[in-house]
């Protein structure tokens, strides 16, 4: 199988990927954009092109339609419905599309694979009817689908309040909102407010307006909730916490978002543990370039900064790619980056405050021993501790001891938990314990597809 050649291959059609691909094509780069979904938008702007009654979703969501329209009008070779399952360090991508595997070799690959919701491991979180807040938002975006029974939202972060407001507007108000942010988070965040207040005023006002909207709708709100657990036989029937219990048909959990580092970890790129955002984050330079010349990263996959910042880092990466393939003089790249960097600084102004205010409680990273950490292989926190005590020095050895991270999700969900639990057990920093090294195929592919790919 010979790989087609392109200048620039972008993985992921969210804000970072769309913005990067469109700018690169404008700069004359032969650009391909590969995305797993049927339509552009990523998760944040999912199904934005077909937003019908978009009233519940709001203006920030509809803002994504501009990027999608620019992509459609561009010279980018857009490949929806295509799943990347392997990337070689030389920039060769293997992906499955319409049941067959193809390969493309790009001079520069941009990973724009975005974020995922931080796993929220509580007792009973594997019960049917326990989902993430983002999952409810996906249903609203893709099919105007809303919860039908008693919905409880629990956790913390901007998305928790946004989803509460969107469900209210959609005529499906939650029965309660349980906020898990400890009181000390508010105190610590307050100290950061003077510096953030002016540069981040727009984001702050938006957030306050959302909270006000939820309060005005009369949704019961409980703060400082600890000891959250889902109760039920065969499905969630109630949500309990230290000091209370409420019946529920659906529990939506949210503890913020973390970078999706599955491919960057599999490539063996350098990652560090981000103490402010409590997640793994690839090491990139101000252009998103990594220690592999053929691979760069943009958007939330390189550190959580939000959709607006993602589009900006996508454009910076496109400028750098253009310089890398000699379609743009480095001086011109630097000149054009100026405006983007100023806008990026404005977008990042709110981050230290948000990171501190919504810093997950310790039990989110290191849950109690009886709680399931690896949902796929049904491995508890206690079993991971035991593996650490038996001599497993890190997550990759704990896999062999317990099968944690060896299920179909390949550690996407349990990765941060396993690293944090082992660090806690062994009394070492998480950075020293390390992360899973995922392997190709990044997503399961059938043997038939693999066989059809092989050279005779």
């Amino acid at each position, binding site marked *: 199988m010979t790989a087609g050649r392109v200048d620039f291959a972008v993985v992921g059609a969210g804000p970072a990927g769309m913005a990067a691909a469109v700018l690169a094509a404008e700069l004359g780069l032969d650009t391909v954009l590969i995305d*797993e*979904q*049927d*339509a552009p938008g990523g*998760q944040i702007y999912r*199904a934005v092109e*077909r937003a*019908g*009654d978009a009233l519940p979703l709001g203006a920030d969501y509809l803002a994504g339609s501009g990027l999608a329209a620019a992509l459609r009008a561009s010279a980018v070779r857009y490949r929806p419905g295509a799943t990347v399952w392997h990337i070689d360090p030389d920039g060769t991508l293997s992906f499955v599309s319409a049941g067959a595997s193809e390969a493309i070799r790009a001079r520069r690959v941009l990973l724009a694979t975005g974020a*995922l*919701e931080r796993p929220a491991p509580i007792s009973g*979180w*594997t*019960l*049917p*009817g*326990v*989902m*993430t807040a*983002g*999952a409810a938002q*996906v*249903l609203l975006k*893709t*099919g*105007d*689908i*809303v*919860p*039908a*029974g008693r919905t409880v939202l629990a956790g913390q972060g901007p998305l928790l309040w946004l989803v509460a407001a969107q469900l209210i507007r*959609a*005529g*499906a108000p939650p029965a309660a909102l349980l906020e898990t942010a400890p009181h000390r988070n508010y105190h610590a965040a307050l100290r950061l407010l003077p510096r953030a207040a002016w540069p981040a005023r727009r984001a702050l006002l938006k957030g306050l307006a959302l909270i006000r909207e939820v309060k005005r709708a009369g949704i019961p709100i409980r703060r400082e909730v600890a000891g959250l657990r889902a109760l039920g036989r*065969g*499905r969630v029937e109630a949500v309990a916490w230290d000091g209370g219990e409420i019946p529920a*048909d*659906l529990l939506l959990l949210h503890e913020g978002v973390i970078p*999706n580092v599955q491919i960057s970890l599999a490539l063996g790129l350098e990652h560090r543990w981000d103490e402010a955002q409590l997640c793994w984050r690839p090491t990139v330079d101000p252009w998103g370039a990594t220690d592999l010349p053929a691979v760069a990263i943009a958007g939330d996959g390189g550190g959580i900064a939000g959709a607006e910042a993602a589009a900006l880092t996508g454009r910076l990466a496109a400028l750098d790619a253009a310089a890398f393939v000699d379609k743009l003089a480095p001086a011109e790249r630097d000149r054009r980056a100026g405006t983007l960097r100023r806008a990026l600084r404005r977008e990042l102004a709110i981050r230290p405050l948000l990171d501190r205010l919504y810093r997950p409680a310790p039990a989110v990273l290191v849950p109690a021993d009886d709680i399931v950490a690896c*949902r*796929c*292989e*049904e491995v508890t926190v206690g079993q991971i501790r035991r593996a650490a005590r038996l001599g497993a020095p890190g997550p990759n050895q704990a896999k062999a001891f317990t099968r944690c991270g060896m*299920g*179909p*999700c390949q550690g*996407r*969900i349990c990765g941060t938990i396993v690293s944090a639990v082992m660090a806690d057990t062994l009394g070492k920093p998480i950075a020293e314990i390390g992360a899973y090294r995922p392997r190709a195929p990044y997503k*399961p592919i059938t043997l038939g597809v693999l066989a059809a790919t092989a050279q005779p």
Partner: protein
Amino acid sequence: MFRTRPEATGATVAVTVEGHEIRVPEGASAAAAMLLAGFSSTRESSIGGVPRGPYCLMGVCFDCLAEIDGVPNRQGCMVTVAPGMAIRRQHGKRAAGVE
């Protein structure tokens, strides 16, 4: 557990979930169709055999694995519904068959 908003104006697609026909919004996923059909539990887990349902709906968790048009182990949330699609719950892991 879930319903379509009455304000929804988009086209719908007829699929079957466990053999029962249901119309779901065009653009929705197979996992969403299972939820709309009333299945909060969409499979049994492969280790403990306990009921599971979709968790993330964005391709991360693999908890919505389903049998779609006869092919097992597909991420229900990553497959968009198509007319006549047959969606079934998945029961644990498959045992190797001996003919």
